[in-house]
Each structure stands twice: as C-alpha cells, then as structure tokens.
C-alpha cells in the first residue's frame, strides 16, 4: 500500500463549505497515520494559522492552499510551494477582495499569470476550472485547450489533473475524459477526496451548511445536497482501494507533498522600521526619547527621581534592544504623538503600564516604579512573543481619525485591522438550524427567545427543556435531528467580522503576509486572521480601542474651559480629593467609570476606599475571577479589620501584603510562582498564559506539574501547594493585571473627580457620548438633579446638537442638545443650530422655511417636546403644534395672501402628565418631576417606603418599595440571581431576585417599566437591598427605558 496525503481538504473556515474545524481534520489525519495534509479555504487563508498550529502539535506537515473563485463561477485550487508562492497567493486574494463588495469577488483569467510563481494548480475537481467544459459535446478538446492554457500560466510541472472518486457515475465519466486528456498532454494525475469533513457522520452538518449558504430548507434543497457521505477524510488504504487502477494518482500525492516546502513558519513577517533622524539608530533614538520623557515623569516630586528610575529604564531598554523591539515602541510612540498633536486623549492600558519606558514615552499614565509593578508581565526574554500595547482612545470620530492615520502612514496594503471570526452561538444556531429544518417563523422565534437571559446560564435550561418549551416533541425524529445539529453547528465559523480595535502593520506590504479584504465599514480593511492567530503567527498588534469614558474626559476638558474658564489637565489631577473618596464610600457613583455597577455599589460602602490604591483594588476585585474564587468577602472583612490577613505561606507575605493576603492581580500570580516555585519571570508569564488560554489544557497540566515540582523543592507542604494552585487557577483566567487595574483606576478617579467638581461638564459630556456605562440618560439626569445640577430643555433657539452648559445668575445650567430628540436626524439638528446661529427663529414658519432639511415628523416632535416654545407667538407646546401644522401645509398660490384663522390657538395647554409623557416618548429623558412623583399619592396609600427612608428600616424587616426600573442584571457569577435597580424621585433602590422567584415572576419582572416590590430588607454595612418576595406591576402612562441584561 502506498502512503496517501489528502491534498484538497476543506475546513469549516471555507465558510459554509466545510463541516469540520481545522483541528478536527488534523486529529483525523493524525489518527489515520498520514504525514501531511493540504487544507484549502475559499478565496482566503482564514483557517491556515489554526491548521498550521494544530498540525505542528501533531507532527503533521500543513500545506497551505486556496480555492480561487474564477469569474465564470468555477474554482481553481492552488497549493503553495514556496514563500514566493504564498506571497503571490495572498496578493492575488487581496486583489480580488479589495475590488469587490464584502464576501464577493472573483479572479479574471488574465490576472492569474502575474501571481503564478511558486504555486501548484489542481485541475479537475467537480466544481473546478474544467467543470464547464464537460457540458459540451466536445469536452475532450475543450479540456485539452484549458489545460494547455493552465500550463502556459503555471508551467507543466506545476499542474496536476485532480481525480476524485465518490462512487458517482457522472464523476467517473468525467474522470475518464480527464484521464485521457492528462495522458495526451502528459500531465500527472492526482487522487484527492475533496474532504469536507473528518468523519462520514459530519455529512449531515455539511448538508445543513449548504442549505444555510443557499438559503433553502433541507426539504427543498434537492440536488444542492451531497449525493452521499463520501467526502470525509479517508485512510490511505481506502484511497488505495479506490484508485487501485491508478496507483500513480496516489503516489503523486506523496510526491507533490514533498515538493510543497512552504509552511507558515516561513511567513516572512517583519514589523516596520521606524524612520529615525540621521546619525541615530532605532535603539539610540528610543533611548534618547525615553530619557527626554523620563526627565519630565521622574521629578522626585510625588514620584521617584530620575536616578532611582534609571536602573529600571536601563534594564528595559537593554531588553528591548536585545529583542529588537525598538521599532515597535517608536511606532506606538508615534501614534501617541500624533494623537496628542491632534488634541486626542490617549492612554495605554494593559500590561504596557508595567513598563517604565512606556511611562516615560507617555504611552501609559501609571508609574510602574512607584507602584512596584512587575515588568516581566509585559516583556520577558523567555516568552518569544511580541509585547502587547493597547491604546485607549476616545470612541467615535477621534478614534477613527487615529486609525485612518495608521492606514495613511503604512498604506492600504501595509496596515489593516485584525478580523474577528463570528461563530454560531446559541441564538444563531437555534435560528439557522431551525430554518433549514423547515420550522415556521413562529416556532423559530419561540426557540430563539428561549436562550439565556443575561450572562447567567441556568443549569435547568438545557437544549431539551428549551425545545419542550417551544412546544416541540422530543420523540419527533426531526426534533432529535434538530438538537444534534444544534450541538454540532455551535462554535463553527459563520463569517468574518472586524475586531474592535486591533491593528497590524508590516514592513513592506502586509498583503504578502496575509490577505486583506474590505470590512463592512467604509474605509476599513481587515486581514483574514483574528487577533489570536496574528499573535500566534508573531505579528505585532496594536490595539486602538475606543473607550467612551476617554471621550467623556476629552469632552469635559473643552466644556470646563468654556464654562468654568479653567484649564483642566487629566495628568495633573489633585491627588486624594476628599469629595471623591466621600462619594465612593457612599456608593454615590452613578456615571463613574468602572465603579458604577450595582455590584460595585454594593461593595463600596464596605470597602470604603481612602486612597488611590484602594480604587485600583476596587476595580480589580469586582471581577469574575475574584468573585468565583470567593476572594471578595475575605478581602472586605480583612479591610474592615474583622479578620486578620492570612498568608498561604510566609514567603508570600511580601507578595500579597498589599492586598491583605488575598491574591487579586495577575502580577501577584507571577510573583507567587517565582517565590514559591522558583520560576523565572518568563516561566511565570508562561504559566499565566497557559492558565488563561482555552486551547492549552495539556500545557496547563504540564506547567502545573512544574509549579508543584518547584514548590516541592522549596519544601512547601502539599495542602499548601493545593491551596496555592487552586487560588492561582481560579482567578488567573479573569483576573486583572495590576497595571491594567491601575490604568482603569486613573480613569475612575478622573471621572469621579469630574463628577464631584465639574458636575455640569461631566454630565454634559456623558450625555453627549451616550451610549456608555450602566445607566440610561434619564437616570444620569435624575441623579445629577439630585446633586443640584439644573437643566434647561431642548430649544431650537438655544440648543446645539450636543448638550451644552449655559451660565445664568452665577449658576451653570445644562442645556439639553438636539441629539436627544427621537427621530431627529443629525443633519437636521446641525442645520437648525447653524441657521439659528445666524439669527433666531422668529416664527414656526420661519423655522420650516429656513431649515428645509427638517421633515414633517421632526418638526412635530420638536413642537411636542416644547423645543419651539421660545419662538415668538408660541405660548405653549400645543400652540406650537397648532402652528406647525399650518406651517407644514402650503396654502397654494390662490390662498397664500389670505390670512387664515388660526393664530389664536383653540387647543388646551398640556397637563404636566401629558408633558412628561411627551418628553419621555420623544426624548427618553425628562428634566421635570420624576414620573414616580405623579404616582406618589397612590403608592403612599399602599404603604410604600421611599428610597431615602430605606436606610432607616431595620435589617430583615418587611418592606414595600416602588419605582421605575433602571437596570436589570443577571451576572454569570451570581448563580442565577437577578439584580434590579429601581429609581423613585428620591434615589435608587436595589432589589435582589432569587433564581426561583425570577422564574416564577419572569413576565412581571421583565415586562413592566414600573414595579412595586415587597420583600425583606437587607442591610450589610450600609449596603441596602430588598430581597423580592412579591412583585406587582405599577401602571403608569409614562414610558420608561431601562438597560437590561447588558
């Protein structure tokens, strides 16, 4: 028996044309004892990195290839022989993709030659380039002509006539013609199985994917479906048997495999060089820039001196030089400089904050020396991977500006965003599989609605239970198939999206490293690999992340300058502002970055932060890692002095002292490994990655073993070892790096400072950058009003598109912007402001005449919310509505001179309730009385306790509360508990809902905007909440919006 290599397999990265992941194909290949395999994606190399690494692990040679779509609809399978071939392939794909809309594109026959070097072409597959020729009566001649054309392009030695045998009469007839042609022209033949899945059982999923692709149901798909289940990865024995009459076809697979030298190890990626001034090298220039910056950073005032810092800086620069990373730091520095020059706020986050060089270059804002942060978390010699620098930028246009700068600087073919592979999740899997099986729209809708609510996965909520809830019978064969297919389609790639901010750049052209294609968003380009694949392939990624709070801070600076006439500098905020800490201690944190969530609010009064480091801890502690690791309560008890700090081992005291013996940060994990098990910095970082990386289970156990060996050497007893290993495992996956927490804590402090000191500016900026944070604008406004901020309504004669600050009687008023008018287009809002700035509108007619962009519905909405009330002769909202209708309707030439009756509006003024309703309906916000105040008399009569009175109610006492729901949450770490925040006119109240109670009262709890909740009051260290025992919807005419399960 001759060995066989499958040279034409398709993985599920051949989007909807393959039913097995690359890893599964590799595993099957390995179990069949085959030494190599080629996987070809359609018009791309989407799955190549995953295929490459899986194959590397199994000791299989991974041949890279692509099926190129031709302009006649056929495909041309190409295999990569050399690096040149790979580069040609990437460029060819890029060319096809860049000129076509997303998901489309085909190669023209005349452009193949340009990119032919280093590629091997397979001709003959069912849907291949020769497929159209079989339809003619003169198929043999036509095929010969086409093969000669391919020989012209790729050379005779690089063409194989591909023969597949799937027990199909027609295919065999075609094979005969191909074989004759191959013999006539003396071309080698190649046996392949065109494998689309690893085992025959996956054929069912393959058929389903075909239906999804072709948008048909299984029942109607007909011959679009597979004829049989033969396209699986076959053993060498099976292939030898199939081609027993053509042994050379099998032998040639080995021969071809040996000719394909290229693997992705030979990618040829180089990070771009940074242009430096004459006489400088990149290293010397980085050295110079670092010290220039360090002089400003390390002044010795509230910071170490330059002398103290220089040891660390030198150490880092030395390592950067050794690893050849100076260019990377300079490029990031360049982006930061560009942002600063453009007045765009930028701050590095993540492990980069562990670097004194990054701090000196002003890439990050946290001093790693002052905070004793571990540099090895960022960069180490042993790690053999690029460091990760993430930059936070204000979300929106300003971030786009920076992204476009990178495109401009490195060219359309030199820079691109990383991709995000969209896979089938619960909802999409339910919907798509159901559709293919022919379920009606109502059943599909029922099925997709039955997926998880919030991040919590209810253990009682199984696929079976959902199916039963959707009124389907588990005994039904179709239903059983539905469940099988739902399971097998989950996590299969669906299509390619765009990563939120990861950019990669390349020396030379990036399109010869990985194909680039346009993203859905105009002006954006993505590579075909996701961020993990890029990192694994050694491609440096710079994350340019949009952060709403950065935009708020940036906007606040401008607003403070304008309204307060003060220069506000985020970098030089007064430290330890008492008002900030007082607000934090009272959990008065609505709108503040990272500390506004319900869980944060519940822990803040217990932790009572007093200094900046407490905020760093606070940001890190309310995370899935510490919560599931049950570290939150021990930390709080120790902080409150109710419990003494305990250390798992005396050696760990210096490591865990700052966090009272509770490991909270990833750096602590590294130091624990270094202290207890004698790990080097690089080894410890490897441990973190292994623990956090989902695909490295085997690696994790290997490193755990190493950890235990180290601890054995140090004589640490086994029970303590277990404890250390357990605590390391439980939070390594989700825990924050301390540097990252510190960067976020800076933003949290800045946002808290702004809220306490410049409330008007902060709230205006928050409202202008919505959506962000936990709360709706209505909640932000009510909270700000409770803090004494006064608002002015939307007014066409005063409002800009965004919210602004007005000064009147030595008081600052926040004027609501036109962006809050529902349905008012930005273009119309801008036109109103522009026209009004020329001169105010003196009548409704004047407004309609001067702002032709305004649509009828928009003017009506403006009138309904009172935005026209400042116009002359408009007495109230109804007058405006009355005049608007006349203004919108042209009287025509005949009657235009006639002064129709109507200046005297006969309509009644709106009642306060009507005004509230109109405001909430048309803007979602209300600056007047809280909607609950209209129900106050009624709810008081029911014996409802007000939010402000709850703190005086005794613990465990029965209580009844009423309010508008502002947030509903079901965190994954809360074991199915649901947390509801309700608001009345006096403040916010917290409700805890048990999983059982939620299940029983789901409709009321989720379906109504206003609720009355009865239950037991719980007061822990001034954190007050009500455990729901009864819920009743509270009927109100005012609509209310809440943020649910986000």
């Amino acid at each position: 028996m001759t060995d066989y290599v499958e040279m034409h397999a398709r993985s599920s990265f051949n989007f909807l044309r393959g039913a097995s992941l690359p890893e599964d194909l590799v595993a099957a290949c390995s179990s069949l004892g085959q030494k190599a395999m080629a996987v070809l994606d359609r018009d791309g190399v989407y799955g190549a990195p995953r295929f490459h690494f899986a194959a590397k692990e199994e000791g299989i040679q991974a041949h890279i290839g692509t099926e190129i779509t031709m302009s006649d609809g056929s495909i041309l399978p190409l295999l990569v022989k050399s690096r040149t071939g790979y580069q040609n392939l990437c460029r060819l794909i890029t060319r096809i993709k860049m000129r076509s809309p997303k998901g489309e594109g085909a190669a023209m026959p005349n452009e193949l030659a340009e990119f032919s070097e280093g590629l091997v072409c397979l001709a003959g597959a069912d849907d291949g380039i020769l497929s159209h020729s079989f339809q003619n009566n003169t198929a043999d001649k036509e095929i010969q002509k086409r093969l000669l054309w391919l020989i012209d392009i790729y050379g005779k030695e690089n063409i194989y006539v591909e023969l597949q045998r799937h027990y199909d009469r027609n295919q065999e007839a075609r094979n005969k013609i191909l074989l004759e042609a191959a013999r006539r022209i003396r071309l080698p033949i190649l046996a392949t199985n065109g494998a689309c899945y690893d085992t025959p059982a996956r054929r069912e999923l393959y058929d389903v994917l075909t239906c999804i692709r072709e948008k048909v149901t299984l029942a109607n798909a007909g011959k679009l479906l597979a004829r049989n289940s033969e396209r699986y990865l076959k053993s060498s024995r099976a292939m030898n048997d199939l081609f027993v009459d053509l042994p050379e076809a099998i032998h040639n697979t080995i021969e071809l495999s040996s000719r394909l030298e290229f693997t992705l190890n030979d990618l040829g990626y180089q990070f771009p060089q940074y242009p430096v001034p004459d006489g400088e090298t990149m290293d010397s220039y980085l050295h110079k820039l670092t010290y220039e910056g360090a002089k400003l950073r390390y002044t010795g005032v509230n910071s170490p001196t330059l002398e103290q810092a220089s040891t660390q800086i030198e150490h880092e620069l030395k390592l950067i030089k050794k690893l050849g990373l100076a260019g990377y730091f300079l490029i990031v520095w360049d982006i930061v400089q560009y942002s600063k020059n453009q007045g765009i706020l930028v701050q590095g986050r993540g492990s980069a904050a562990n670097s004194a060089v990054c701090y000196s270059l002003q890439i990050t804002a946290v001093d790693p020396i002052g905070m004793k942060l571990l540099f090895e978390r960022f960069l180490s010699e042993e790690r053999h991977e690029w460091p990760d620098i993430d930059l936070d930028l204000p979300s929106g246009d300003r971030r786009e500006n920076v992204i476009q700068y990178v495109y401009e600087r490195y060219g359309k073919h030199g820079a691109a965003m990383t991709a995000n592979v969209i896979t089938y999740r619960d909802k999409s899997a339910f919907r798509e599989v159901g559709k293919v099986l022919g379920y009606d729209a109502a059943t599909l809708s029922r099925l997709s609605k039955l997926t998880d609510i919030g991040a919590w996965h209810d253990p009682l909520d199984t696929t079976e239970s959902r199916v039963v809830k959707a009124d389907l019978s588990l005994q039904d064969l179709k239903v059983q198939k539905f469940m099988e297919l739902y399971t097998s389609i989950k996590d299969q790639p669906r299509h390619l999206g765009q990563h939120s901010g990861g950019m990669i750049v390349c020396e030379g052209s990036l399109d010869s490293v990985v194909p680039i294609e346009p993203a859905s968003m105009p002006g954006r380009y993505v590579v075909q690999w996701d961020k993990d694949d890029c990192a694994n392939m050694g491609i440096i990624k710079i994350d340019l992340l949009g952060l709403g709070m950065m935009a708020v801070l940036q906007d606040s600076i401008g607003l403070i300058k304008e309204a307060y006439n003060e220069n506000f500098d985020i970098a030089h905020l007064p430290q330890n502002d008492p008002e900030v800490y007082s607000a934090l201690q009272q959990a008065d944190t609505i709108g503040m970055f990272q500390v506004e969530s319900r869980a944060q609010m519940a822990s803040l009064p217990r932790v009572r932060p007093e200094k900046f480091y407490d905020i760093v801890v606070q940001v890190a502690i309310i995370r899935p890692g510490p919560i599931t690791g049950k570290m939150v309560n021990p930390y709080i008890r120790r902080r409150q002095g109710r419990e003494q700090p305990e250390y798992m081992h005396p050696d760990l005291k210096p490591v865990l002292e700052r966090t009272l013996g509770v490991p909270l940060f990833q750096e602590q994990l590294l130091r624990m490994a270094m202290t207890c098990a004698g790990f080097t910095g690089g080894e410890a970082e490897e441990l973190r990655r292994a623990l956090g990386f989902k695909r490295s289970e085997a690696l994790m156990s290997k490193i755990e073993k190493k950890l235990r060996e180290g601890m054995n050497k140090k004589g640490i007893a086994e029970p303590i070892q277990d404890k250390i290993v357990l605590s390391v495992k439980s939070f390594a996956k989700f825990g924050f790096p301390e540097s990252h927490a510190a960067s976020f804590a800076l933003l949290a402090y800045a946002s808290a400072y702004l809220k306490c000191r410049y409330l008007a500016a902060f709230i205006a900026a928050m409202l202008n950058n919505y959506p962000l944070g936990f709360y709706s604008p209505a909640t932000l406004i009510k909270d700000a009003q409770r803090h004494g901020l006064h608002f002015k309504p939307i007014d066409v004669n005063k409002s800009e598109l965004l919210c602004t600050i007005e000064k009147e009687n030595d008081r600052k008023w926040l004027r609501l912007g036109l962006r809050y008018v529902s349905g008012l287009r930005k273009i119309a809002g801008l036109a109103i402001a522009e026209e009004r700035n020329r001169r105010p509108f003196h009548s409704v007619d004047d407004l309609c005449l001067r702002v032709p962009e305004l649509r009828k519905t928009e003017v009506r909405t403006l009138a309904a919310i009172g935005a026209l009330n400042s116009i002359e002769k408009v007495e109230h909202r109804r007058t405006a509505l009355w005049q608007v209708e006349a203004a919108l309707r042209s009287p025509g030439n005949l009657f235009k001179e006639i002064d129709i009756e109507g200046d005297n509006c006969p309509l009644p003024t709106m009642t306060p309730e009507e005004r509230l309703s109109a405001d909430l309906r048309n803007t979602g916000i209300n600056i007047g009385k809280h909607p609950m105040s209209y129900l106050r008399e009624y709810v008081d009569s029911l014996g409802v306790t007000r939010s402000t009175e709850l703190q005086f109610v005794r613990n465990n006492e029965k209580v009844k509360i009423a309010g508008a729901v502002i947030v509903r949450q079901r965190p994954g770490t809360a074991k199915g508990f649901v947390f509801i925040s309700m608001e009345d006119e006096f403040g916010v109240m917290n409700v805890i809902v048990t999983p059982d109670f939620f299940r029983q009262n789901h409709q009321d709890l989720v379906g109504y905007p206003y609720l009355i909740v009865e239950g037991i009051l719980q007061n822990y260290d001034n954190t007050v909440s009500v455990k729901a025992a009864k819920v009743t919807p509270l009927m109100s005419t005012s609509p209310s919006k809440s943020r649910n399960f986000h």
Partner: protein
Amino acid sequence: MYASIFTSEAAGKNTLHKIACQFSPLIEEINDQTVVFDIEGTSMLIGTCRDVAKAIAATATEYDIVVNIAIARRPDTALLAAQFMSGITIILPGREAQHLSSLPIEALSSCLNSSHNKQKAFAEREAEQFADVIDTLLRWGIVTFKDFTRLSESSVSARLGPFGLKLHRYAKGIIDRPLNIKNKSAELDQSMDLDFPIDSLEPFSFVLHRLINQLCSEAKSSGLAVQELQLKLFLEDKTECERMLRLPFPTLDERSLLSHLMLVIKSDPPLSPIISLALSADPVKPRTAQPGLFEKGAPEPEKLQLTLSKIERLVGADNIGSPTILDTYRPDGIALKKFEVIRSTRSGSSSRGKLIAEKPKPSNPRIALRMFRPALPANVREISGCPTAVSAKTVEMQQGVRGSIVNFSGPWRTSGEWWGSTVWERDEWDIALGDGSLYKIYRDLRSNSWFIEGVYD
C-alpha cells in the same frame, strides 16, 4: 333615511345581509359585522323610524344575534352610531353632531371602511393619511368628536388638508354620499327534496341536470361561470354524503358539468337511496381567453377534462398525470403532476417565418433501462464486497434472472433525507451476465438486502 346594523358577534357570512334584505334592496355591506341600507319608504309599511328599528331588531332576534341598530339621515352617521352606540339609536336630522360628540376620535376609522372598490394603493394611502391626522389630533389633545368639531372648518382645512376636513365633516355627521351597492356574487345554490328516494343513476342524472341548469342560468345572469361544484346528498338512511367537482377552467356548459359530476358519483356511488340533494358553487369570472391563430391545435378543455376524468376513474387519482423528474438523488425520484396542455405562445417564438425546419441536434445514444416495479428481491453472491453471481425470480421472465456476473461497474452510492423517516442509502451496480444481458442491481444498505432494479435494453 339610512339604517345600519352592527354586531360584535361572529355572525354568518351573509346573516346581516339577509336581515337587511328584508327591509331594503339597497344595501352596502361594510364588512361581515356591519351593513348600512336605505330605508326610505319603509315608514309607509312599518311606521316611524323607531318602529323600523324595532322591526330590524326583531328580525335579528330571529337569526339569534345581538345587534346595534342606528337610523340617521346619512349613511356614515348611521354607521358610526351603530358601531359605537349599543342598542337602538335614532338620530334625528340636524342633531348628528350632538349625538356623535362623545365618540372617541379613533372611531373615525370606521369611515375609512365605508368606501368600497378602492384600489389597494389608494386604500393604503388613505390609511396612512388617517393615521397621520389622528396622530396630530391626539397631539393636539383632541380625544373626542366634540373636541374635534369645536375647531373651525377653515383652521382644520388649513392644517389637516382636504382629508382632515373630510374627517371633520364625518365627525359632524354632515357627509352625505350614495350607498355603494354591489351585486353580491353570493354563493350559488340550488336544492331539491325528492318525492321518493332515487336509487339508480339515470333518474338521478335528470334531477341533477335540472339543478345544474338552474345554477348555470343564475350564474349566467350575473355574467359569471362555475368552476367548482359541491353536491350534498341526503340519504334515506339519514346520512349525508358530499361530492366535489373541481374543473381546471370556469364553464357554463351544463352537459359537461353534468357528465363530470356523474363520473364523480359513478366512481363513488352513495350507499343508500337519495331523498334530497343540494348543489352549490362559488361563482367565478368566465374564461375570456381566445386561442391564438398560430397556436397548435389542442383538444377542447372540456373534452380533455372528461377524458382525463374517465381515465382517473379507471386507474385512480394517484396514477394519472404527466411524469416529472424530482430534484433529488433519491432513486426513482419521479412524480406525477397534473396533466396540462402546454400552449405555445406566439411572442418569443423564434421559428416564426422559418421555412425550413431545424435539424434535430444529434444526441449521444443512451441505453434504456426497463425498471422492475417493484424491484425484484435478489440473491447475490459477493466476493470482497463485489457481486459475482445473481439470482432472482420474476413473473415476466420465465426463467427469472440467474447467472454469474462476468463484468460490473460500481458501486454507485447515494444516500439522503437523513433528517426524516424517508432516509435512504444504497449502492448500485451495473452488471453483465454470461448470457450478455445487462442489469442494474442495488443493495439497500439499511436493510442489507439486494434487489434487481431493471434490465438494460
């Protein structure tokens, strides 16, 4: 004066119409729940408006439905009152606005329904306009007819346009219009109670002919035809049976209808003598198409249908039609579709004007396969999974199929419909026996049994 009847109950399709018919021939049917009709002159027969209303109510009681009745000078006023005021409402001329004043503004929507024969696009536009006006009125705080009618016509006209003005006038009850009377293409039905039970077909055909004749005359008088007939037979043993005739074309040909219906009855005669019968049909527009001058001759549809019905009676409904190949790999994937004569159309005919007929294109010779239906169960000897000898008995061939396989090609494998109970999976082989005969055999992989599917010519 006009009367309107409204019922919130799900009354029979024609109940309100039947009630109204007893008082006036001039009826406008708004929907299944509302009618409005002209009662001018009824006072001479019945008395005052209230008396008329009471008489209508009494008739409604006979039909066992609860109704609202309103009488007013204008049809739309009567309509509004009937729909929104319970019991009997008599609106005297000049007091319309006063009566309607408490109605909610949304009630004006009933005025939209009152005009018929509107094109879909027009109706949609009107519905949009209506929604727009009501939205504006609600924004204005206008919730009742009274609020609306307080506004002056000129200001309404200037702000809400002609449509708003129309609604304003509706609210005042001053819009007048003629009724939209439509000849009701009601179901045609004829019935007959027989003096004595009929138990043979011949006398029955006379009776049936009479009914068909009456039904066709009725349809003809309305310019309509018949395509579907429903015959209900009441039998002596106190049971009922129904027969249905569906023709592919509308017709008024009584003889053809009778022949078809008799064929249906012959193929499935009633089990007991007939004592009474009822024939009904939904009238449809008659056939207007005229065959083209250049069209190929084809049998008259009536005759063709008759022939098809006769064949169907012989072979059964499932065994007649044109064979069509299904889009599936399933073996024997064919079905019978309804037989239709395809008429060529003149337009697009490329051969028009050609004097010389096109030569038929040469096609590759194909071997014909004669299928055994059902396939013959066979015994197959195999070595290494390949068949080497086959034997099977068949009625058609005296000696059956028997012999060593001297040559074969295969297996050709198909499988599918794995998601349901019709799943199949099989390997096919083309085999040559020593006597030179060629067969197609297959192994059903699910039952692991062999069959001979056919013989190649």
